[in-house]
């Protein structure tokens, strides 16, 4: 099966989006699920990416990723018409979507991508959807228009105030949780540190909070244990038990440490790759 890239766009300095052919995944996927992709069919890193959307008629799924290491850079270098080595999925349990009442959806940085289909699904199920999108600076706020299209209320915050309010997402989140009636559910997706503080905020208001965890992964079928996290004092596997968990039970500190596990090495591989690109004149 060939996975042709049918469209591709750069969303910000390091964030890209593509639509890629994967008809079986497009058909089976539900909000909250992810895929594992490989740039080539051979020996390379397997990259877990959330599915940001799908078009069953075209048989395509939409991926959004950040250029961080060698493999994600290689993906960024692919052009329309070229192919990905493989796309396996959809993986993980789908989000439980029903009419809860009011749902507040908090996205941080690249987390807006996996949040999008969930927030939209919540809207379609009849919920009032309040979206809070946060980023460091204006140009890192992605998918704002798409959230605006269906959100009943949209709040954008940036750390430096270059766009929307100058605040962290937890500030408007606390205000919304303080309303009467308070929201029935919060869904927070973004960097681990952001999810951690969102959960601390909602805990004070006893608003149930779902988070979606993006850990290290290898197989995605429950074999390697690389994706383990501690939830409610127990070891859970993100690829088969998640990726969504009750945020109030997740041990974020452990997860953040594990996420940094490969960072140094990934950077090393990335440096080597960049030099290689320079030599063969790929750099723009």
């Amino acid at each position, binding site marked *: 099966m060939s996975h042709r890239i049918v469209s591709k766009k750069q969303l910000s300095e390091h964030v890209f989006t593509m639509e890629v052919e994967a008809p079986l995944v497009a058909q089976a996927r539900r909000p909250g699920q992810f895929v594992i992709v490989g740039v080539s069919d051979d020996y390379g890193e397997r990259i877990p990416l959330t599915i940001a959307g799908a078009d069953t008629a075209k048989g395509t799924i939409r991926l959004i990723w950040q250029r961080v290491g060698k493999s994600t850079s290689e993906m960024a270098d692919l052009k329309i018409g070229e192919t990905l080595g493989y796309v396996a999925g959809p993986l993980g349990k789908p989000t439980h979507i029903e009419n809860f009442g009011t749902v507040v959806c908090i996205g941080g940085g690249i987390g807006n991508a996996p949040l999008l289909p969930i927030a939209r699904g919540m809207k379609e199920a009849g919920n009032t959807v309040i979206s809070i999108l946060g980023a460091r600076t204006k140009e890192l706020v992605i998918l704002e228009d798409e959230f605006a299209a269906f959100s009943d209320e949209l709040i954008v915050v940036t750390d430096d105030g270059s766009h929307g309010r100058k605040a962290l997402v937890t500030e408007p989140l606390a205000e919304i949780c303080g309303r009467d009636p308070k929201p029935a559910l919060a869904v927070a997706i973004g960097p681990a540190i952001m999810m951690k503080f969102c959960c601390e905020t909602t805990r004070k208001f006893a608003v149930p909070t779902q988070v979606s965890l993006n850990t290290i992964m*290898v197989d995605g079928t429950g074999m390697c244990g690389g994706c383990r996290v501690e939830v409610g004092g127990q070891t859970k596997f993100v690829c088969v038990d998640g990726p969504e968990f009750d945020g109030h039970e997740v041990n974020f500190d452990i997860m953040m440490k594990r996420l940094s596990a490969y960072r140094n090495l990934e950077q090393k591989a990335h440096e080597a790759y960049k030099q290689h690109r320079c030599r063969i004149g790929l750099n723009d």
Partner: protein
Amino acid sequence: MSDDRTLLNELLEKQKAGGLKPSDRYAIPPQPMPAQEASERRSNISEVAQGYTETQARLEAMRCLQCKTAPCMEGCPVRIRIKDFVTAIAEGQYGEALAIIKENSLLPAVCGRVCPQEVQCQEKCTVGKKFKDVDKAVAIGRLERFAADRAGAAPAVPQVAAPTGKKVAIIGSGPGSIVAAADTRRAGHEVTVFEAFHKPGGVMVYGIPEFRLPKAIVQQEIDVLKQMGVEIVCNFVVGRTRTVDQLMKDDGFDAVYVGVGAGLPSFMNIPGEHLIGVYSANEYLTRANLMKAYNFGKGADTPIAVSKRVAVLGGGNVAMDAARTALRLGAEKVYLVYRRSEKEMPARLEEVHHAKEEGVDFRILQNPKRILGNGDGNVAGMECLKYELGEPDSSGRRRPVPIEGSEFTLDVDTVIVAIGNGANPLIGQTTPGLELNKWGNIVVDEKCKTSLEGVYAGGDIVLGAATVILAMGQGRTAAAAINEYLASKA
């Protein structure tokens, strides 16, 4: 070598003159397996054991007494006609030897390398019994490997019966699945193998390392399946991409074999297991094998930690493979920490032996108490306790008990946990009505049939972590049952 040749010629003469007596056979020295030097192989990933020469193989085969009762066959899980194939090798009839093996086992090149012969056929061998040493039994496994390797690069492609119009789905592509696919395809059914990973072969590809089982051997068997007309679909996660139900109801599969293997690695549940540098052996080996971590920075790009001092926990094949892989990835010191005594190690004897030769430091009757971290959350050491053997437990083995106050610290930066696996949960979670036992393994009857009509299962998902040969045996049983079931379902 020329001494061997002389001995072989003498024996052949004697045989012609009137036959070999048991005493002649007992006098033939057991043939050692040629192997790469330990110091050399530590830094490459090429196969360690290099296989018998022709002379060695014939000499070893002549050690066989051709016992009437053939106790060795009793010990073989798939009941290969051992003495017949060994005799064929002694006579120089290698093709015939392979044909005899293939009657019962589809993957001799694999089994000859990875079966735990010392607790199967070789344990029962009369010659070993005579010397009271299983190491001196006829080296059946090495002979099996010889026969397979001699046959050369292209295994014969089995005949396929006329199309039946029936469709069989095989889930997973490990040894059980390969056999199930071959046997159902031979009966003329249309067979598709669905594999979650981007390479087929199961544990034989992502678990067992290259230096013990070259990937090219597994690839050959996969190629034979393709030549037989079996379709192999990778990156297809049954339960997610399509469920078992969908395969049967919407995609027209008449029968399914589930061979998804073991899953969910066990951890020790001790403090520090979430530290950076603690891996399950599955993760470690998969990164090393499937993503070629040993080429890090040279094309392959899985960022496995570059470990200098490693502790591996466990005493099975998986633990040995992890320890020896760590050496090859450049570790300076590798400890193998095991709670019981060496006698109880479930690993193949040869692997234990090879690991020691390569310099793995065996820490027997020791067990970790906690893993220590530094400020950055990296592993900085492992605190262990010494154990001694106490009273026998219910299994009759003497139970290891910790010695109070015996704590000491191993200076390591990486800990690899290889203490076993639970069941792969995905098929169970997504297949309503499929009966599982309390450990999550699929329950089957003696024909490998599950609680669902048309659904069969075998290998590690049924047996818990077992062996290649047992998985193959179940793949064959299941295929026979599937063929019977489809024939009855006009």
